């Protein structure tokens, strides 16, 4: 069976590309590192892949706003390719900086390029936060979290600007439509607004959202950092299935892409 192809997008300052590549390969995909220059010059095309992964990092130094410069570049030069990719029902995942880019292109939450409806602001603490948090997986149509609803997973956040923020109307709408995929949770597994369990000060404890098809997802925490046994900080004291729970996100994506 042919392995689904993943385009791991690189650009100046992207720095979680290798672990994202590894997480998808680990799940059975065939990955390619693709620099945005190669897409702009037409040397590579998004149509050659089933999954587009926007990794974490500090694209263009996160200058002006996190992910902003890359988002502008994508909208300016790859609008048609991106819309074609989306319209063909392919998958897009943005992790951390990738989520910031998806929000700032407008692909999340409404698949409308150039219309920014949600944003990731500088953390309430006003500084970078690197810590392991609990995420409650909501019941959604998100492809990436199939079979995971109701579970609480442990995953690392590492960002300076992960505070999910939007207008009251949009917030209501994405809640009504069930687009919230992950929420920061306390030790009891329920969503929390309190620091540091909610490390960014995100509205409604939102850590990740998807679009209405469930095929585009963005999340601030880094599931690609926890697909192997020794990657969880407490692997020495926890059963294996806890430290491997992030694998399912990638497995789900690859499984779905295989059916395309």
């Amino acid at each position, binding site marked *: 069976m042919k392995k689904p192809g993943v385009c791991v997008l690189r650009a100046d300052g992207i*720095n*979680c590309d290798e672990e994202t590549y*590894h997480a998808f390969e*680990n799940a059975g995909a065939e990955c390619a590192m693709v620099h945005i220059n190669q897409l702009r010059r037409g040397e590579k095309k998004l149509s050659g892949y089933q999954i587009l992964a926007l990794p974490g990092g500090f694209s263009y130094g996160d*200058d002006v706003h996190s992910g902003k410069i890359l988002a502008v570049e994508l909208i300016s030069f790859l609008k048609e390719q991106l819309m074609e990719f989306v319209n063909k029902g392919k998958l897009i995942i943005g992790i951390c900086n990738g989520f910031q880019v998806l929000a700032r292109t407008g692909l999340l939450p409404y698949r409308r390029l150039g219309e920014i409806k949600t944003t990731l602001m500088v953390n309430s603490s006003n500084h970078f936060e690197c810590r392991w948090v609990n995420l409650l997986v909501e019941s959604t149509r998100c492809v990436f979290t199939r079979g995971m609803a109701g579970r609480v997973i442990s995953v690392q956040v590492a960002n300076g600007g992960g505070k999910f923020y939007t207008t009251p109307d949009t917030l209501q709408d994405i809640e009504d439509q069930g687009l919230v995929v992950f929420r920061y949770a306390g030790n009891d597994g329920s969503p929390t607004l309190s620091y540091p369990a909610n490390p960014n000060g995100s509205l409604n404890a939102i850590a990740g959202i998807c679009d209405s098809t469930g095929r585009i997802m963005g999340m601030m925490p880094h599931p690609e950092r926890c697909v192997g046994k020794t*990657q969880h900080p407490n692997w020495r004291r926890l059963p294996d299935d806890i430290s491997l729970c992030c694998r399912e996100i990638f497995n789900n994506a690859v499984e779905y892409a295989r059916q395309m």
Partner: protein
Amino acid sequence: MIQEVLVMTKDGIPDNKGDEVLYEIRQALGINSVEKVRTAKVFRFEGIDEDAAYFLAVRLLAEEIFQSFRVNGAVINDAAFVIEVAYRPGVMNPEAASLMKSASDLGVDGLIAADSSWQYGFYGEKITGADIERIVNNLLVNATVEYVVKEKPETLVIQGNPGRTEIVPIRGMNDQQLIELSRDKLFLNLEEMKVIQNYFSSLGRDPTDCEIEIIAQTWSEHCGHKTFKARLIVDGKEKKPLLKRLRDATEESKHPLVLSAFVDNSGVMDFYDGMAICGKVETHNSPSAIEPYGGAMTGSGGVFRDIVGTGLGAKVIASTDMFCFAPPDLPAEEIPPGCLHPHYLLRRAIAGIRDYGNRIGIPTNNGSLHFHRDFRAKPTVIAGSYGILPAAACQKGQPKPGDRVIAMGGRTGRDGIHGATFSSGEMTDRTIDVNASAVQIGHPIEEKRMFDAILTARDEGLIRAITDCGAGGFASAVGEMGAETGARIALDLAPLKYPGLSPWEILLSESQERMVLSVAPEHVERLFEICRDNNVEITVLGEFTSDGHFSATYEGREVMNLDMSFLHGGLPQRVLNAAWKRPSLDAHQIETPADWPGLYKKVMGHLNICSKDPIVRMYDHGVQGTCALPPFTGVHGDGPNDAAIITPILGMPYGMVIAHGLNPVLNLIDPYYGSIWAAAEAVSNAVACGANPAEITLIDNFIWPFPDEEQLGALDMAVDACVDFVRATGMPFISGKDSLSSTYRGKDGTVIRIPPVLCVSAFGRIPDAAKTVSADFKATGSHIVLFGYRDTKEMAGSVYCQIHGALGSNLPRINPDNLMRVLKTLYRAVGSGKLQACHDISEGGLAVALAEMCFGGDTGAVINIPEDEDAVNFLFNETAGCFLAEVSAGLNPAAIFGDIPCRIIGVTSTDKSITVKQSEEELFTLELGELKTAWQQPMKEVFR
């Protein structure tokens, strides 16, 4: 005309940046008149009209969801004071290039230049001008890189005409004139100046400024290591030079895993599957003393380039940081003139490490903080870095005549001019004024894309040799690479950040994010393609020759032509006297405390011991997905570990361990045993997690006061300790660095010396990271076993003694032979899986190690002090190389630890408290939560 766009957070939405500034105004400055701070980002554009600026504001600069903006109009209108802070012209604002790029992506034509800065609005009726002045000078503006914008600039373009190359009439100078020439600029002594004078007399000409500058730079203490290479007369007898002693010891150890020691930008040891790992640790004390943010940033950036500049190019996989400061609550009046307050230094240096490491995507997962009042003279800022590369590419490359001299990465500016020579000078009250140009702001994204390009080029076999363009710039990089061959470069070909640099400035500039490569002519075209693909600038500066000369031209005229042999071999060997005098220190007094819990909490809350969690959480230690033992683990993620373990090849079990040790205070008592302690601590930290002592290599960093006879005597003892340690344990030093200028001299005659620092870093390989252990207790009802050699009366230098105001003189005298036996046994014990947890005993002693293990496991403990031990000594002795381990109750420790001294001292308990008994009589019980609060509080107060 300049178009201005001002952007601010909408009313009603928290202004985080403003809130943070307000917090610091109150906490750090104690000013209460300010009620609110609001901030606005200022963007300036040259070459476009107002409509275009409005377009950029909407599409790029302001996000409507939470921000509002105005074009060419104020947004903070109702504040009592509004202050704008910007980078000084010439200090490159990394954001400017992104503004230019994005404007171009959006189709905005005609933009010539862009810049950004911040406005601060201060609210409160009682704010005085004096308050604002303090806020500006002590919090918002570091005058070496920033300034207060008083009026809108007329242009953003930096203009300037290059200066001419001057001839320095050195041949006709008398001694006084030679000394004048050297002072504040060259930092050479009279003998060295005379050698230069004689060289040019023999050539029959005077030198150019380029020539004088490059000699001073190459001969600086920073680059030339004159003290470490000097003939040393110790107490009247000549001993081998310090550097030779260290290198001979390494050679004699014949360690089978060492692939490259002391010859390259980092030391390299074998790893697995044809890969090698390398390590380098650097100091950046002098720049950090005057601009800690930029200093720490460029310290990180520089040591990362050392890794990439190893062999034919390595990938950077880890970063470490070790700092020594004066206590952050030191009264301002105790800070010597020309020095910055430690509270500011600490916060800003950590922000620098954070912003460089996080942005470039290198995990910072090991480090420490040490405090002593005398670091107010000059902080110690140490940054380490580690890498991985194919073993086949791990040997230092050698240019061939005809190879191109290639500069890659960032442009050259007037940054860090005289950095190498400046780092070799002492701090004085003139330091900040004279050497302001020695600091710059780092640009991690520039460095990241350059690294990406280099690793691609390495894999394609395009690189013959590579080195970092660090201290001394092109002069140092090209001069060292071409030392055996010769090199000729054209300085006017170097891409500049702005016009106006003189040829010598281009030669000496220490602008960051640059590397120099030697590339065969047939590979140049492909290398240019790789660089284009990664948005990296690349330039052919010249070529390596076979004439043994280092020459440079500017616009066709020769501005430098020196014999490589004089440049690298002309420096006269110094003859230095060393004699250490044992200080007369009072014996420490140990008294049975009236308040055990109070004492315990005081020790846990000591600055050297307290939790550094707020700092660790600002460093990305998980990026690259390699972390197998993070800084903190345990039930609540707050139990500290001894070392970092990473698995640098994703999907493979191979581990790399990284640890370090230092204890400056012990060196004040006895530099020999203080240094043994540092090395013992470094390797104990590594082995506590499961590393094999036979597969560990070491890195030394000596950060010393100016080496007068006394300090040189101390240095001599420290080096002897290192050598003895290598001989006893077989673990060799494979890289190292010295920085011997941490003395402060005030105008009034004040002299302050830092406590001498030897930082020993240890790194090694572990075949299976899944067979390693963390420090957090895993279960209740387990036995707690103490093992290792210690004489608990050796309390001098301990935190207990420091708290009681006396250093003492009877310090831990660790026997490295015994240590090695402990480590071998410990390694076998961890490998057998019989230890559930293990923690090294270090600063604060057994009591601290025990508490930290309890925090991690969220368990309590009940321990019993042997009858024949003094309770204080037992709990607070700090002999490194002793450990606490968690062992299942059914196991006999003697069966695990053999003839190593060991004993069960207690059990872990469900009751979340620590109970200490002696002869079954309870000395005290203390709630774990109370102890943890005392331990976590100090850094929470410094970092919000």
